[in-house]
């Protein structure tokens, strides 16, 4: 039980560090740390496969891409001119309001679902695979279009122009 709270505390701390660290590279590293805490959350939630995928996709692929681009642009120092303190405060207050209203509007959560089902198997790759390739076959296939479009687009936008226009 206390494991959840420790990890949740770490998640929040790391997430805050992500957005309040000046050095972008440090931000990326904190984000990786945040994602790692998420992986632990997944394990606690009995979503083992998700934990693995989160580890590989987010920490392995996505974050590497971020780091790569940061390095490519030589932005590893804190070159970013920060917003004025006032703007920061206003932004933080706006975000705080959002949190308060979000939580406030969910005020009395129905108590029926406060405990987890005993079904420990759903997070296993076998079960997920069954659902993914039966019920969710169509969206799964369609995600290929999404990835293909992204791939074409990324190449199109980021490649160097051979024409000197």
């Amino acid at each position, binding site marked *: 039980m206390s494991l959840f709270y420790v990890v949740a505390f770490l998640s929040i701390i790391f997430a805050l560090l992500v957005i309040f660290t000046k050095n972008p590279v440090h931000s990326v590293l904190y984000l990786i740390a945040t994602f790692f805490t998420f992986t632990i959350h997944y394990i606690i939630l009995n979503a083992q496969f998700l934990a693995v995928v989160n580890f590989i996709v987010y920490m392995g692929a996505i974050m590497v891409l971020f780091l790569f681009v940061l390095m490519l642009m030589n932005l590893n120092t804190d070159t970013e001119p920060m*917003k004025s303190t006032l*703007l920061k405060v*206003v*932004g933080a207050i*706006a*975000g705080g*309001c*959002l949190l308060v*209203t*979000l939580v*406030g*509007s969910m005020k009395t959560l129905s108590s029926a679902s406060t405990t987890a089902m005993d079904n420990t198997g759903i997070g296993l790759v076998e079960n997920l695979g069954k659902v993914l390739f039966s019920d969710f076959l169509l969206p799964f296939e369609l995600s290929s279009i999404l990835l293909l479009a992204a791939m074409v687009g990324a190449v199109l936008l980021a490649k160097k122009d051979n024409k000197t226009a």
Partner: protein
Amino acid sequence: MIDLVWLIPLLPFIGFLINGLGRNVLPKPLIGTIASLAVIGSFAISLSIFLTFDAAQPQVIHLFDWINVGSLSIPFAFQIDQLSIMMLLIITGIGSLIHIYSAGYMSHDTGFGKFFAYLNLFVFFMLLLVMGSNYVIMFIGWEGVGLCSYLLIGFWYSNGAYADAAKKAFIMNRIGDLGFLLGVFLIISTFGSVSFTEIFPKAAGMVSGDATLILITILLFIGATGKSAQLPLFTWLPDAMAGPTPVSALIHAATMVTAGIYMIARSNILFALSPVTLDIIAVIGLLTAVVAAFIALTQTDIKKVLAYSTVSQLGYMFLGLGVGAFTGAFFHVLTHAFFKALLFLGAGSVIHAMSNEQDMRNMGGLRKKLPITFLTMLIGTIAIAGLPPFAGFFSKDEILAHVYEHNKLLWIIGLFGAFLTAAYMFRMMFLTFWGNFRGTEDQKHHLHESPVSMTFPLIVLAILSIVGGFMGVPHALGGHHWLNEYLSPVLAATNNILPALSLDHATEYMLMGISVGGVIISIIIAYVKYVSKGYVPKEEELQSGISKLSYNKLYLDELYTAIIQKPLDALSAFFFKVVDKSGIDGLVNGLGKVSIEASKTLRLLQTGNVGFYIFAMVIGIVAVLVYSFIII
């Protein structure tokens, strides 16, 4: 014959298509012929329908289902009854004459083909307006004529002021349209239908003074004030004189501006059940009539005089509607169409002869040079002044008789306006046709009577202005008021609600006597001032009417001037400057400014900064959450 009714609007539309597409290819005479023939053809059909139509119930000719949505069905259908037949005759009849006239008037214009295309299109929409069997078809016509009017006012757009006039007409009409549209939507939600034949029987069963009905009728009346140039939306009409003169005659005198009256007459049962609205209409109409008459007193542009006169006469029509004289108001629509079209065409003939000079101070003594124009215009002027037995006498007298019965005070003011009418109209005649020629040598040399294509319509209209009144000779004068009987099927339900005229003949004779006597005195005053004394208004007097007034008042020897002439002029100047130019224009321009300012300010929100955009989004989301969960 009635099966051919769809041809009536179709012919002008075909004319529009041919002239519109072939405007640069076809020779001018052919364009003029096609356009005129199209309208004449419609006139022939209308005439034959008029001669054969004898049904007591309106005939609805269903063409096709236009919109079907849920229980609401809007057919594309025409309604033929006595009211629409009379309007058809006016539109196509006077329309034909004006088309013929235009062939001569516009012969030198480079936009000849375009002009006739627009004119045909206008006739098409006007016919839709009066023939539509429901409010939505009427609205199509309503918008269409507005559009054509807009295009035709701005026809000579190379002149910037003209384009501005078009814009003004447009804005004011849109305000009116707003009322009309809201009225129609309210009708839909109240009656579940837009067809006249379904709404009116339902409405007849409602109690008088029903709040919804009052709201509907007020909204419809707002629509009418825009289209028919009533207070406070009348200032676009004088400016609309920027368009070619035949346009002024057709659109801004005979047909389009009477659309508001037609619409109210068409919905007579709704209005009859809303006494409050009727009172508002009467007051607005009367105010418009008098204010416009005052302004007309000092105008020097011949077309502006006629324009304000039109506004004033439209005011009388609304006054008639307001006191429940639906027949009388409609009668005035008919006679006014005759003599005002005549006057405009006559003015056009003068302008044509004077090489596009419109200022009366540069005219004078034209009666010998333009005899036909002079004679016909004189007839028109007598008709509008209301001397018997010319057309205007009967219609105006009928309205005033109803007003007298309704409210004596309104009657006195209305009568006063009628005297003013005689005064400014004869002022115009005397300045233009009497005295010595005041223009340049060049213009004098060029003076000529207009070609037959222009004088022929003048003569026809002059004859109509003489005899047109006989369709409504009151019982007091030994007639039996044919128009009243003819229109009675349309007004049957209303006549059950509103009391009929109950004046005895002696009172009627007295009323006629007073009005004729007053008119004659007005004419004599105008004669003394403008012919005997040869007075010609000067620029500076017009400029500083009010300040000079206070100065000159001190001289007692100018008693006449000070007591009668100057106050009138001053009032005229006051109305023109304060009400027309600064008041209403100011208000309309102000509205425009407010929205433009709002636009400027709102636009600044679009800062281009993503950070700000996202911030605004978050605020929006918080607001939405708060609104959804806390406020509600």
